[in-house]
């Protein structure tokens, strides 16, 4: 048991709760081309604008009369057919920004295009007052570094790629001593105080995460990729009963300015196979109905292909949601309207913050208006 000074009692463990809902955010970094992921295979404009890049209708795995999967998404067909997947089309925001840095920040901070927030939406969830957000381990990013989305004004989530390693690092006698000698005055607001606060929180969280997750042995068969491995780590955390509410993971490489087909197909295959395994793992452990996945990218890409068999940064694109408890599934709203573009780009129909709003409010039972700054109309998918 880690020794902590008495005034830091608030870092003590809270009771483990099974049956609570959690969300897994999957970020596709680089700007995934939504049009070649969910393909409008009966649309002439699509084929006119992408003579080299469009997916031929025969290859598309049709989902309804107008839209279908890029064949690289094959592994998700069964998940889709079982009603576990929802596709939300034309998700974006007013005055879209086509800079990676800026648009990703907008999605991470849930800001308007002309606002500059320095805290992330999941971080602000941790800041807010609710049952599932009192500890920083209530949001975990499975990565070596923490994204802006996971950093609140007062609290940060914890980045854990390997629970055992983090735990071992914090159990050193020397660090235990430093933690026990830390007094309240040292937890100041400046940079050094920040280091001390982080140190104490880390020790406490690492202990909890390791002790809990080691009780579950994950033998499920996952495909061989870093991405699948990270999903396997998340399923271990979920299945062991960790009281974490939000998980975050990313897959990068989607910035396909040049030679898009090969690159995107490979990534979509990695994505689809990983998610399919993850879904089945959670189902097997009876946790699928309490889990919600959301996949997004910082923007889609231009309708017309460029001169290098690729596409440039665009605007609105699709968002995928997955759960055993979806209230709406399949193609949730109308597909992309290619005859009504804005300077060659898709116009958004759904503000991404309404997706966040639903996740925060309906699924996580948090105060989404407080976290997002205002209220948004929800789609009713969960």
């Amino acid at each position, binding site marked *: 048991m880690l*020794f902590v000074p008495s005034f830091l009692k608030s870092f003590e463990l809270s009771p483990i709760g099974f049956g609570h809902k959690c969300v897994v955010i999957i970020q596709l970094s680089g700007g995934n081309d939504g049009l070649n992921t969910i393909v409008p295979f009966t649309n002439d404009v699509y084929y006119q604008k992408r003579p080299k890049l469009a997916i031929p209708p025969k290859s598309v795995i049709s989902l309804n009369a107008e839209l279908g999967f890029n064949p690289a998404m094959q592994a998700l067909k069964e998940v889709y057919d079982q009603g576990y997947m929802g596709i939300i089309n034309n998700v974006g925001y007013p005055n879209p920004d*086509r*800079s*990676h*840095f*800026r648009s990703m920040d907008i999605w991470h901070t849930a800001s308007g295009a002309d606002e500059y927030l320095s805290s992330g939406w999941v971080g602000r969830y941790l800041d807010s007052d609710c049952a599932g957000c009192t500890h*920083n381990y209530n949001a975990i990013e499975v990565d*070596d*570094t*923490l994204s802006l989305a996971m950093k609140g004004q007062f609290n*940060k989530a*914890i*980045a*854990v*790629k390997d629970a055992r390693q*983090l735990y071992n*690092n*914090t*159990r*050193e*006698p*020397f*660090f235990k*001593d*430093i933690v026990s*000698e*830390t*007094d309240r005055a*040292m937890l100041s607001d*400046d*940079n*050094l105080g*920040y*280091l*001390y606060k*982080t*140190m104490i*929180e*880390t020790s406490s*969280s*690492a202990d909890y995460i390791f002790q809990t997750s080691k009780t579950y042995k994950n033998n499920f068969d996952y495909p061989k990729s870093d991405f699948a491995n990270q999903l396997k780590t998340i399923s271990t955390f979920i299945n062991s009963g960790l009281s974490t509410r939000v998980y975050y993971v990313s897959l990068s490489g989607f910035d396909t*300015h*040049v030679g898009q087909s090969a690159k995107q197909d490979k990534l979509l295959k990695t994505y689809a196979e990983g998610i399919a395994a993850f879904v089945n793992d959670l189902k097997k452990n009876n946790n699928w109905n309490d889990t919600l996945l959301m996949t997004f990218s910082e923007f889609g890409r231009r309708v017309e292909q*460029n*001169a*290098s068999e690729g596409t*440039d*940064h665009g605007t609105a694109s699709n968002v995928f949601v997955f759960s055993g408890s979806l209230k709406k599934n399949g193609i949730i709203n109308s597909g992309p309207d290619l005859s009504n573009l804005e300077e060659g780009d898709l116009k958004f129909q759904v503000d991404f913050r309404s997706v966040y709003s639903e996740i925060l409010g309906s699924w996580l039972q948090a105060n989404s208006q407080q976290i997002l700054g205002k209220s948004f109309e929800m789609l009713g998918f969960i």
Partner: protein
Amino acid sequence: MNNQKKIQHLYARAGFGLDYATYTSTLTVGEHVDLLFDKSRKSDPVLVVDRSLLPRKDIKDLPKIKQVELLEEAVKYGKKLNVSWLNQMSSCDTVLREKMCLFWHGHFACRTLNPVFAQDLNNIQRQYALGSFKELLLAVSKSPAMLEFLNNKQNRKQHPNENFARELMELFTIGRGHYTEQDIKESARAFTGWTFDVKGNFEMKLAQHDEGEKTFMGRKGNFGGEDIINILLEQKQTAHFICSKLYRFFVNDTVDDGVVAGLTESFYNSGYDIQKLMTELFGADWFYDEKNIGTKIKSPVELLLGLNRSFGLKYNEPKTLFYIQKVLGQILFLPPNVSGWPGGKNWIDSSSLMFRLKLASLLLDGGLIEVEEKDDNPEDYKEMMEKEKKAQAKVERKIKAETDWGTFSASIPKGISKRDLGEFLLSVIPSRPFLEQIIDPGADNLKSAVVEFLSSPEYQMC
């Protein structure tokens, strides 16, 4: 504030730390500033990547196996380049130039698969590090690395690719909010035709260049890329943007508007003379203000180099250097995205902090941090220490780093008090509980005390 503290601060920011002799030298602060600039007069390029690794036009015609071989060579040399630069920064006396080069490396963030291009760009940033920002900007914009990374090779008349034009304004010069999307479109047109040849030299392909009139930032003309750059430099906002970034990197995470306004005027009026600007910065009273001393969190590279330089660390496995950079979140030549490394508190979270605190002990003593036994958990303590001692040999085999402990210990006066030792090693005075409960009882020799100081949160500050 005493001279020693100011000198320690100067070398922490303008370089990568200092040795005991420098710390206690009788030169004035001003003389040290001059010395730093003097030593950085020369520019030693990093030249480890063979030019035979330039991208080949015929690569698709080669057998698949040869293509794979070439790709593996490129990766191997990319790593070599990373390690070479780290080694150069670890042993050079041109510390100011290398520190400026590191700043420009982050400012002009770029990722390229071709190690020759990466090396060339690095040498450009080193050559012009303390020179004219205009020349630096032009040379970087014409470098194959940047042209390729920002897809300007694909920017052609009738089929513009806006990536380069966008980042030039957003990240390299004027910053967001000072141009329109239309300016980007027009700028992209001006840069059409800017490409490079098989020898890695800039090339202007006239056939791909859009010769028409462009309207850029209110000006009309048949602008080419150089014209766009000149117009951008004419905007004082560019000087302001650069000065703000320099301030955040060298002085404080929080910008002092008054100070930066002054630096902006100097920089702009001097025609973007970097050496003049940095001389002003390191010579100013405000640079040595209490609020700026020991208040920045070291970047991963600064942390690593501080240790390398202080203890003459030699790595038998370059892999180790890679691993360290990766876990800490900063790999040279691999910035996370076009805007480089955000820095400050962003370096710190649960996992990176724990590794930072362990780093010194891993490199200097096989991961061992000697600690005095505490009464409350004697069995626990004993077990952990035994584990650590057993692991020590294993860690040493894995890390494969050699320390020149002899030179370091010879430089420290015999019988130095732990307090004084702490003040030399750390930019921030260690807390009393740390000194009284941990350092005083625990360390009974110089090495143990040093390792303990270097494992404190305070050592992360500079």
